[in-house]
């Protein structure tokens, strides 16, 4: 059971995630978009969207810091467990709340503003449910263990296990003793990961950082594209 939950499911999910992204990139570039609904409504969006997106970016940074950076490293540079814990819980809760409030605003907008609701697909609705579940579960785990409870150091358990996945020496036994709130959050996150490539969430992977360095006006030659036109020419055996 442990192996299924903490080895097979994570690896399956990562495989679907990576494979799905590659597949989507190859076959559905046209569908790879934010599909913004700002044209329909922008007053509410102006509050909800930045709140959610900046919040979720902070949450992402927090997760990278907490999961990928080993505890020994932060201690080596003189950050005590207590100091780390305090900042993580403090910033994490704020970022989590921003994300949650932003998401609540966005979902309410999606449901209540007519044009936005009619342009919401079933895929979107499922995506909102999974994404919302992951965020709520994560926040709940933090609040239960570290705000109300007497503190739980996931950097002793969840983080080493998570890193063990990437060095291909998965160690499911560590996860067995983790509080159930964290377990559920982790599992939900892997479900989200597997769902990711097939939703509009893919737009996260087209964050336009290249804009900062490229020249303002892009010139492109027709010749460069002429090798393939807009659609790749089919190979003989594909016709």
């Amino acid at each position, binding site marked *: 059971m442990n192996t299924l939950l903490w080895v097979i499911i994570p690896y399956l999910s990562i495989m679907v995630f990576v494979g799905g992204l590659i597949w989507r990139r190859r076959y*559905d570039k046209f569908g790879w978009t*934010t599909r913004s609904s700002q044209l329909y409504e922008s007053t509410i969006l102006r509050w909800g969207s930045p709140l959610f997106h900046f919040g979720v970016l902070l949450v992402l940074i927090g997760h990278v810091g907490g999961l990928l950076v080993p505890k020994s490293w932060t201690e080596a540079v003189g950050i005590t467990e207590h100091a780390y814990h305090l900042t993580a819980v403090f910033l994490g809760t704020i970022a989590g709340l921003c994300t949650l409030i932003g998401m609540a605003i966005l979902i309410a907008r999606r449901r209540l503003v007519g044009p936005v609701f009619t342009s919401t697909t079933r895929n979107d609705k499922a995506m909102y449910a999974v994404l919302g579940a992951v965020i709520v579960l994560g926040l709940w785990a933090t609040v239960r263990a570290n705000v109300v409870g007497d503190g739980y150091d996931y950097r002793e358990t969840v983080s080493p296990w998570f890193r063990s996945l990437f060095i291909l020496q998965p160690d499911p036994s560590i996860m067995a003793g983790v509080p159930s709130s964290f377990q559920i959050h982790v599992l939900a996150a892997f479900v989200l990961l597997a769902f990711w490539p097939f939703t509009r969430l893919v737009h996260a992977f087209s964050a336009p950082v290249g804009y900062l360095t490229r020249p303002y006006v892009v010139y492109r030659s027709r010749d460069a594209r002429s090798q393939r036109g807009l659609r790749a020419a089919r190979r003989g055996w594909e016709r």
Partner: protein
Amino acid sequence: MRVMAQMSMVMNLDKCIGCHTCSVTCKQAWTNRSGVEYVWFNNVESRPGQGYPRTYQDQNRWEGGWVRTRRGRLKLRAGGRMKKLLTIFANPKLPSIQDYYEPWTYEYEHLLSAPAGEHTPVARPKSLITGHDTKISWSANWDDSLAGGNEIAAGDPILAQVSDRVREEYEKSFLFFLPRICEHCLNPSCAASCPSGAIYKRAEDGIVLVDQDRCRGWRMCITGCPYKKVYFNHRTGKAEKCTFCFPRVEIGIPTVCSETCVGRLRYIGLMLYDADAVGKAAAVESKTDLYTSQLSVFLDPNDPAVAAAARASGIPEDWIDAARRSPIWDLIMRHRVALPLHPEYRTMPMVWYIPPLSPVVDVLRDTGHDGEDPGNLFGAVDALRIPVEYLAGLFTAGDPAPVTEVLRKLAAMRSYQRRINLGEERDESIAEAVGMTGRQIEDMYRLLAIAKYDERYVIPAAHAETAAGLEELATGCSLDYEGGPGMGGSGPFGETSGRYAPIAVENFQALSTRQRADDINQPGPEAKRVNLLNWDGKGRPAGLFPPRESPNGPDPNGPEEKP
């Protein structure tokens, strides 16, 4: 010097009768799909009027185009790169659908399905955005021909710039039409605003296009374009814009809007320009110098040095030749009668306009004067500050001198040609009064009045050796996978997913689906349709008749299926 070729257009506003044929044919060709109902790559505005989208020219509000910084460099008016990325989650300067209009259709089905009643049934307007009943309150040319009167015309941002006296008289006396397409600027601010780098300027002919596969829907281009000619497809979540009908232009035929123009007021041709000079020319200090600074980047194709440089830059010989015969060169540089639209946006637009003389002539005629007498006309151009000031607000960043000069040339041509028409002697003094010769005036007259198709549209075809790349010449069959876009369906994630279908195929399918649909809103499932073309008259094809109902249960003969 880096020579580049630019496909450009000039429109002669004196000839525009505001019939909207260009807009309608353009829409039929390019934007008759769902998601772009409100999109007009070509639209015709009445002047004075608010334009489309409403008050787009008010850059204090919409922040389109470029501004010059104190250090003499160009910056996007809506903010630099960092600001663009920080506001990417909610663009603060995006027009809402209400600034365009809420597209609608009519509930025609009600006309047929309404129960018998006392009153004739009506087809109620339904919003295509919400699907509910709507009240139509604005559209792309709601204020056509000054409809709505001063109340709406007063919202004209250009009118707001001119003085009170001028404004009042202008509202009373003048009307002309301004057809607009994308300007395909030399210094496009839409492309500069695009975080993904999806908008690009084609190196061969300068046409500005959106790469649909790279657009991620960040919608910064819509803010960036001061002409608001980049639109957001609200179904696919991608930007779309006028393509200068590149599939047509590539094979040497004019754009749809030009081809169908009733007044034959459009001219298409090449301009050669020095790409290295563009940045500096767009950043000149005074706004009113922008017209002349743009003239300075154009290169004379008859100059052997320019031709040599063009060859060195890889421009083919027939393109250089086409540039020599270009009507655009003649109108912009030789006769100097065409002016750019809003040079003050610093984008170096490449669709230029010959300002209309007709408001002046109309005043003369209405006041009982001879509208073709050179003395009257010259006097009126100088005295009637009203149209001149307004036209200067559109074409020369407020400087009346170039507008006056153009109008005087048009007036001289009018008077000079009348003498010829009436069999009188040619009067060189008329030509000299505007610094031209009689010969030049006749030349200009020929180009403006009687130029034939081949003279108005000098379009060199794209080169055959690169033909494999021409987008619409797909070598494979366009309809080649089951349920694919070519088949009228789409990929596995709904409308916007799957491979990109060439627009021509998509349009063709959408149009034929719509023509055959039972309901204007929701074309029924394909399976409902019956193909009678391969029905040989035997038996009943599936779906031709509704299932039989009889009191004794199911039809004893059973539903007879296709033989």
